[in-house]
Structure formats: C-alpha cells, structure tokens
C-alpha cells in the first residue's frame, strides 16, 4: 500500500472514531439522570444507582475525548504520509 492509500485509510479510521465518540455522547444514557432524579425515586438504592450512573457518564465522556484524541493523532499521521508522498513525487519528477 502506498503512502497516499495508507493516509486515506488513516483518515477513514479517524472519521469512524469521531463518529463513535459522537454516538457515545449523544446516546440516551447520557440523559438518563434527568429521568431518574429525586422526583422519580429516592432512597439509598436510587442514590447508589445515580452515583454509579454519574461515574459511568464521566467515564463515557472521557472515552469520547480519548477517541477524538486518537482521531487527531491518526490525521496527523495521515498528513505526514501525504508529505512523504509529495516528496517522493517531487524526487521522482
């Protein structure tokens, strides 16, 4: 696989990771706390459920951030590969 094809593949992966990050952050679980607040149920067990959910939501946000960070790195690698491809073309020319 040449450098340009490899760069395209990396950009495709980056787009996929960004889309996954968006899907995670827009999934219904990120809004579940609004439906399960103290007006809905209260007591030690609901408190534990809410605490677990808040922790998981935090982890999911962090996971989405990581995915975007990965995507950014893949795009940087793609740019480097593009630069290599351009220089190879220049040398060949």
């Amino acid at each position, binding site marked *: 696989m040449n450098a340009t094809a490899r760069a395209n593949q990396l950009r495709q*992966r980056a787009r*996929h*990771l960004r889309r*996954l*990050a968006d*899907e*995670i952050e827009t*999934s*219904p*679980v990120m809004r*579940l706390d609004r*439906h*399960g607040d103290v*007006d*809905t*149920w*209260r*007591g*030690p*067990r*609901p408190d*534990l*459920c809410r*605490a*677990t*959910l808040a922790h*998981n939501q935090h*982890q*999911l946000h*962090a*996971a*989405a951030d*990581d*995915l975007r960070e*990965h995507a950014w790195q*893949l795009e940087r690698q793609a740019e480097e590969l593009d630069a290599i491809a351009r220089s190879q073309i220049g040398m060949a020319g």
Partner: protein
Amino acid sequence: VDAGYDPGRVHSLTRHTLESIDRLDALTSSDPAAADALRTVRLTRANLEDHWMHALRDLERSAPMTRWRASNLTPFGFRSLGSMGQSLPDHLRPGGLSPVAIPEKRRAELLGQLDWLERRAINGDDERRVNPDVPVSPGAPTQQELEDLADDIAYWVRRDDDFATDLVELSTSNMTVARLLGVGSFPSAFSARVVKQMAMPNGPDSGIDRDRYARSLGLAVASLVGDPGACLDLLLDEPTTYALAAWEELDSTMLADFVASGLMDSVLADATRLADGFEVIGHLTLAANGPLDDGMSAGMARGLALSMPVYFPLLSGGVFQTGDNAVRISEHRITLGTYDEVARLFGSVMRDDEAAGALGVSLGTFTHDELTRDGLDLADAGSLTDVVNLSVLLDDAAQTEQAQVVMEAAAEEARRRQLAGWFGTGTNIALLASGVGAAWRSAASAAIRTITDGLDDVEPARFEGASIAARQYEQIWRSAMANALERPATRQAAQRDPVVHAQVEEFRRRLDEIEACDDPFERSVLVSDLRTATEGTIVDDYMDRVVASNGLESIR
C-alpha cells in the same frame, strides 16, 4: 431514611433505561483504538442492567406499581417506603390476602392453645431438670402439636395486624411464640418484629427462665436465615444488633448464621445493600468502643468475621492513616470510625478463637483476589497498598498472641483447602450465584474448626512470633518472586547468560518447593533462605522495587 417513588415516572424511567441499554448494545467498532471506549460502554451497560434494572424490576413487581398499571392512573405522587414494604413478597400480607379481623372466639381459642403449650413446655423442661436422661419429656408439646398451632396462627398473622402485634408483645413472656417461628411459615416481617421485641442486652432481668428465653430467641433468629434481606433490615436496627451482640448466652451457631446471612448473603444477592452492611459495621464499631469493649457474643463475632470477604475490598481502601484518622468508605459516604476504633472492633471480634480464624480466612481470600487481579504489576507504586494497610490494621487489632496464631493458622488451612478465589475481586458481586456465601462459609468453618479444635495440640514454638502481617508479607513476596522469574527482562538475561539461566532455574525449583510446603514454619525458613539467595542477582532490583512500592517493610 427518606425513600419513595412516583409510579408514573418510575415506569417512564424503566423505558428510558431499557432504551439506553439497547443503544449501548448497538455501539460497535472493530478499530483497535476504540477498544477502551467500548470497554467503558460495556461496563456502563452492565451497571444499568445490574443496578438500575435490578432496582426498577423490584419496584415494577411491587403491588402499588401493579395496581397503578392496572388502573392507568396518572402519576399520583410519592408513596411512602412503608407502602412499598407492604407490597413486598413475604411481607405481612403476601399473595394479596385482604386484611380480616380474627373472630374473637377464634382469637381466644388460639391464645388459649398457645398458653397451654407454653405451660406444658415449662413443665417438660422442669421434668428434664429432674431426669436429664429422658430425651423428650412426656409432658412437653409434640412436634405435630407445635406445627398445627403454627399453621393456624401464621394464617391469622397474615390477615390481622392487631393479632400479630398482640403476639409480638406476648413473645417476651410466652416463649412458645418464638418456637412456633421455627416450625411454621410466618412472614419475615413478623419474625423480625418478634426478634426485635425479644432481643435485650444480656437477656431479660425478670423472673423468666433465661436459658429458655435464649433458646427461643435463637430459634426466632434462625427462622429468618432464609431471608437475607430481612436479616440485614433487622441488623440495621441498632438496639437489636447491640442486644444480639451483648448477650453471650445466645446460641452462637444460629446467631452467626443469621448475621452472615444479613451481612454477606444479602449483599451477594443485591450489591446495592453493601452500604447497609457497612452501616451495621459502623454501629458495631461504636458498640465495640463503648459498652462492648470487653468483647461481643460469639455468634455476632463469627457472623461478622465470616462476612468480611464482601467488605474487605472497600474497607481496606478506606484505611489510610493510623490513630485518630477516619476509616471512610468513600463510595458510600460512610465513616466507620477512627483507625483505632475500627482496630478495636476487630480486636473485640478476635477474642473468640473461631472468629479470629474466620478473619484469617477472610484476609487470605481477599489477599489472593488482590494478588490475582487482572493487570496487576506489583512493582507499581501502591498496587498492594490496600492489602498492606488492612494487614497492619488486623495486626494492630490482635491483642493476644493466640489471636495471631489462630488467624495465621486458619489462613494457612484455607490456603491448603483452596478457599480463595470464590468472590473474584469484589466487583459485580451481584452476578455471583446465590448460595455461594453459605457454601463458602461452610467450607471456611470446616477449615477454622480444624485449627481451633487442634489449638491445644499446637506446639508453642511452632507459631512463635506468629504474625498475620508477616504471613501476608511472605505471601506477597512469593507472588512477586514468581512474577520476577517470568518477566521478559529475566527471560532474556537467562537466554544470554548461562550463569543467570542456572540461577533462574534454581530459583524456580526453590519457589516450587516453597509452594508445595504445607508447614508454615518450614516454609518461612525456605522463603527467608531464598530471599537471601536472590540478593545481587537478576531479580534483586525488581524485588526491591516491589517491596519499596508497596511499603512492604511495614508488615515484614
């Protein structure tokens, strides 16, 4: 406790939770860079299923929710926890029995029979005092008579609250009430009320036969063992727990089963009850630092100690500093007490040999789980801090050499019987099959009995200087040594250098010998020799880092 729910909103929440689970299920990716994110997604999904849906299904099954769905009513505001309780299975009126007042004539008849059986039981006991060789006194009530009366009374207890209340009050003067609980099928809520009524610190001070009273209370307590949630609810009642912990004449086996059912089985069946269990331990910590500073009933001590595999993972994480610093269970915002107070609680537990043995077994189980944790690198700073801190706490708690000996020997026996590994790392304990607690306790109790029964035969020199912390050090050191020998750096060096190769092979052989050694005294000598032999070799640097990273010197 402020608790309640809005049926309409709970119903809507259930739908939203199911939708969330479905959408999380749909998130997939074959990209390796997404592996961590998908792991978090799966964890969240599992928590929604384990915690949210578990709790919501319980609510959805309750009678108020069933009625609400049937009536199609719009949300009608909060229901009290009491009304939720009435709707739970095995509560006062299970199976939708409508309340009916017992006819006066029937009431008098049943109370008359109860009084008659009680008199015969007292006479029977008196006869047995005169002639203890007679297995069953001729005048005492027969099993069939007790079962028949229990059936009749249980029927009316479910339907008539006032009749149930009268019986609860009668239970402190008529011991047959509690005895019936063991032969009939009574709602747990009723049995719990009887225990609450009968439980008094150091027993009744009236003219009542204290032995009979203690036996009856033991039967009432035992009748609840099959309902772990009810046992924990009752343990949350501070005066009852204190009374059961204070009265030493209570049957220790029955009480230990009741306490372990409440503290361990209820949490294994429903992980959300862990906070309630810690609250009970907090109450006992207070008592152990006040009225129970001379020790607690053997049954309470044994039940508490046998339940510790469920609590050690979070408890150990709450131990940071000694002295007046708080031991805090941050996950549940509960402070058990200061380090010294919690140490005194365990010190109080260890006064009973079997309970000390149970603590040793529980610590061994916890340590094994920590040492076999996925992704553990012993050379990482603080990777075993929890194990070390808990070991120091229990070491400080042991006020006598005998307690140390029993703990160490029981932990050793548990290792021999492979009792560790039953509870995983303490996470997702709700997923464990029900009954695992009782099975583990049965196996643990057999190991403990082997030790306590043979305690008189132990040569004092054999366990001289015994220390649970030192044993922990040894166990961690052996695990670290096994890791050191399998590290890529060690393997590569062994491939390059024949001298290193020979050393590593020799260390492996000696480690196998140590693992196969069943004698703790001999084993500690072998460990000590191997430790000396490894100095200045290829594994020395790694072993030094493990010791330094985890503060192992503090328990050596």
